[in-house]
């Protein structure tokens, strides 16, 4: 496959960078939000996932708005109007030979897409708007918060400092925070970023909404941190042929969170067909393991133990029939065919961590994952969040794991419920307790040992033990070999769950009745 080519369309005096991917029978133009960089998108798992999904059913046309990414810079003292920027969409469509296209506008891209749809109805096949709005100050941020945001952008641009404003759910993901910092640097200069923010603050397209005639789908995450979901509730009332799908989630960028859910909705809307479930997904149990230092080991010793644990982790995962699925920050993720194996591996890892002298915390979850590549989907993210939630030494699992692991010998105690942004309902949790090879401990304790379970010979042996006789003496009295007596004693201790001969003697004394022990 040849690399994705970046080309440039001319819009007035400005060159607009664009890419075309996919072989679908209709065109889909993606109008990005605040900032973008065509090259960098493919380096983020979520972004490239979104683009691959969309380009699987369309000919997807991507571009960087003027002033951002690979497109020409603009004079920050003479910012282009929304109309000028909208005309860049037309220029890119002309360059790609697209006479009519569906438009996907995300965030700040939504007002641009709406303006295009109202201006060029004959060129708009359909409109999909994600996390969009018609008026910046009303639904994104009031003027006073905008000033603070611009100050952050101007003073700390390029460090990823704006991430909490967009995707607070990803601030603990070091890989993503590094990507976000590059995304800032490669998408706009600090001055341009501040200028773009000011320019976007002027957006108000409320007046043109009734003029949009294309079928329109609105998608908004219910707890979107950047754009108030009321923004889309307003749009659905004003755009004639529109409907709104509210989905769970908090992170705002369209390529974060449950990307597949967004792609499913767009695909169904544009093709009229529900996305075919991918055959490459399989049911699997995932285990996320993290270790941490509770003993203030010092860097060197911690480093050594950390390394040793990683080696042990690979070994134990393999030994339990699992596969290493890579590390995500401090989390080690492995996958198994069934939850029983994952749980047994988790228990072995907990013991290994104790032996090595580090603390462990683990999460186990079960769900569909991609057959190929790392489990970065929803099941993977939930598993990793479970590990993050788990306390020292805990194996925290979803209730589903416990339900599926019935008969595995592992037992569970209820651990309440926890809400995750991406899930509709709070997730019921359990803690996996140590493996019980016999009856669960609580049952064994509750049920008093029955003397009747002893054989006649064993009862005789218990009586003689109670008399304080040695194995040799008992052997002589019962005309048995000493070895046989030893076997009887061992069986008696096992059956009665007693630790010693003395305990057996005491038991005999307690249970002596008319019929003997």
């Amino acid at each position: 496959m040849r690399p994705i080519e970046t080309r440039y369309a001319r819009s007035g005096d400005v060159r607009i960078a664009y890419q075309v991917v996919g072989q679908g029978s209709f065109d889909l133009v993606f109008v990005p939000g605040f900032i973008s960089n065509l090259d960098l998108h493919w380096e983020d798992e979520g972004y490239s996932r979104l683009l691959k999904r969309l380009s699987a059913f369309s000919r997807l046309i991507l571009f960087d708005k003027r002033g951002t990414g690979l497109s020409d810079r603009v004079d920050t003292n003479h910012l282009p109007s929304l109309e000028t920027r909208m005309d860049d969409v037309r220029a890119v469509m002309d360059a790609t030979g697209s006479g009519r296209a569906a438009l996907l506008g995300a965030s700040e891209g939504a007002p641009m897409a709406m303006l295009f749809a109202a201006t060029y109805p004959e060129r708009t096949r359909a409109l999909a708007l994600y996390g969009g709005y018609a008026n910046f100050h009303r639904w994104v941020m009031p003027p006073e918060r905008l000033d603070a945001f611009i100050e952050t952008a101007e003073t700390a641009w390029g460090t990823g400092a704006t991430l909490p404003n967009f995707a607070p759910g990803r601030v603990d993901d070091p890989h993503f925070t590094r990507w976000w910092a590059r995304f800032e640097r490669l998408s706009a200069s600090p001055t341009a970023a501040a200028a773009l923010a000011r320019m976007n603050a002027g957006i108000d397209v409320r007046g043109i909404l009734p003029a949009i005639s294309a079928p329109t789908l609105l998608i908004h995450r219910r707890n979107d941190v950047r754009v108030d979901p009321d923004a889309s509730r307003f749009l659905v009332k004003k755009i004639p042929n529109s409907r709104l799908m509210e989905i769970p989630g908090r992170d705002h960028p369209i390529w974060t969170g449950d990307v597949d859910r967004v792609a499913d909705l767009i695909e169904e809307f544009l093709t009229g067909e529900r996305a075919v479930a991918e055959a490459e997904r399989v049911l699997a149990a995932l285990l996320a393991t993290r270790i941490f230092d509770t003993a203030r080991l010092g860097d060197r010793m911690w480093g050594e133990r950390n390394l040793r644990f990683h080696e042990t982790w690979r070994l134990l995962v393999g030994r339990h029939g699992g596969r290493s699925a890579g590390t995500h920050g401090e989390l080690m993720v492995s996958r198994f065919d069934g939850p029983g194996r994952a749980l047994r591996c988790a228990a072995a890892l907990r013991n290994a961590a104790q032996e090595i002298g580090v603390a462990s915390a683990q999460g186990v979850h079960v769900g569909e994952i991609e057959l190929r590549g790392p489990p970065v989907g929803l099941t993977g993210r939930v598993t990793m969040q479970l590990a993050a939630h788990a306390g020292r030494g805990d194996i925290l699992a979803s209730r589903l794991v416990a339900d599926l692991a019935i008969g595995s010998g592992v037992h569970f105690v209820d651990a309440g419920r926890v809400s995750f942004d991406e899930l509709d309902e709070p997730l019921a949790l359990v803690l996996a307790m140590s493996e019980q090879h016999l009856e669960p401990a609580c049952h064994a304790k509750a049920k008093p040992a029955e003397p009747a379970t002893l054989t006649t010979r064993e009862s005789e042996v218990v009586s003689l033990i109670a008399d304080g006789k040695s194995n040799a003496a008992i052997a002589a009295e019962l005309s048995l070999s000493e070895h046989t007596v030893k076997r009887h004693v061992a069986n008696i201790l096992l059956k009665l769950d007693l630790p010693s001969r003395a305990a057996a003697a005491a038991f005999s004394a307690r249970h002596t009745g008319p019929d003997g022990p």
Partner: protein
Amino acid sequence: MLTKTQAVDGAAIKKAIEGRDGKMLASFYADDAMVRVIDRNNPPSKPREIRGRAAISTFWDDICSRAMTHKVDTTIADGDNLAFTQACVYPDGTKVFCAAMLELKDGRIARQTVVQAWDE
């Protein structure tokens, strides 16, 4: 409809495709026609199926809205079966090549299978 009386043959299809006349193309199909598309994203075991004239009409409208050139060659007719190849070029030079097999019923296209490959 006047277009309904247009006979469906190799020459008519060539004229409509090369002229990017989506409406004319849609009129060639029976109401319950089916077009199957096999390409990279729609493999033979799961081809894309476009059923009914309305959906087929949208399909051709989408294709014909693209400012690209189509050239239909090698049309073969055999009773109620028709076959042709089609070479297409996008403005950026990207080429697409298609081979299509058609079954006619009562003078309309009842079933069509398109196999296509794109520059990539």
